[in-house]
């Protein structure tokens, strides 16, 4: 049981390049989230998904796209990277079932992205 994993761990891009970050969870969770963390700030929500085949925008969605073709995977895409997207990206997941107390989001280890 690996929990939430993210690929890659670190990446350097040039302005205008594209890339996809992969998040995978093996806990059969319905909800998945992508956050970004900038220096001196907490995490902010980019996009989220409440189930396979569904996605929705969060607080800071501009410049990003997502897809959830399989329940266990949540992909975050940057079509044309910009220096402002230099950040650490976290994926998280949580279940929608179980007793009332099952409200915790479980986080992946993060992906550090540098856009030059």
């Amino acid at each position: 049981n690996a929990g939430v994993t993210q690929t890659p761990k670190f990446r350097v891009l040039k302005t205008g390049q594209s890339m996809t970050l992969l998040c995978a969870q093996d806990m059969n969770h319905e909800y998945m989230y992508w956050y970004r963390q900038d220096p001196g700030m907490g995490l902010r929500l980019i996009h989220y998904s409440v189930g396979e085949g569904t996605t929705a925008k969060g607080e800071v969605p501009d410049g990003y796209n997502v897809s959830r073709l399989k329940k266990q995977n949540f992909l975050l895409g940057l079509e044309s990277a910009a220096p402002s997207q230099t950040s650490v990206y976290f994926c998280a997941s949580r279940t929608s079932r179980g007793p009332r107390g099952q409200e915790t989001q479980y986080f992946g280890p993060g992906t550090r992205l540098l856009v030059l």
Partner: protein
Amino acid sequence: AQTVTQSQPEMSVQEAETVTLSCTYDTSESDYYLFWYKQPPSRQMILVIRQEAYKQQNATENRFSVNFQKAAKSFSLKISDSQLGDAAMYFCAYRNPIYNQGGKLIFGQGTELSVKP
């Protein structure tokens, strides 16, 4: 909109002593969840403790406990018998109701805790 404020950018504690990290939040909801996450240099987000707003009893997890004041919208974290491994960035987080952006977490700015030997 909901907000979370951590007014202490940095805190320091002597090993084996007790420290309290402050957090305030703003919401019009009555049923919500509050969390403290720890982020060590590895950047992994680790859940420290969780509080359900409908519960009046303060949550505790070993050396970690909270002081939840619902009316004052205050949620502080107390770390007892501080250890060197407690040194990290600590984030307070509020969880939206599920119908609001999928129950996203709203984070404070963080408090950097250092532990002196």
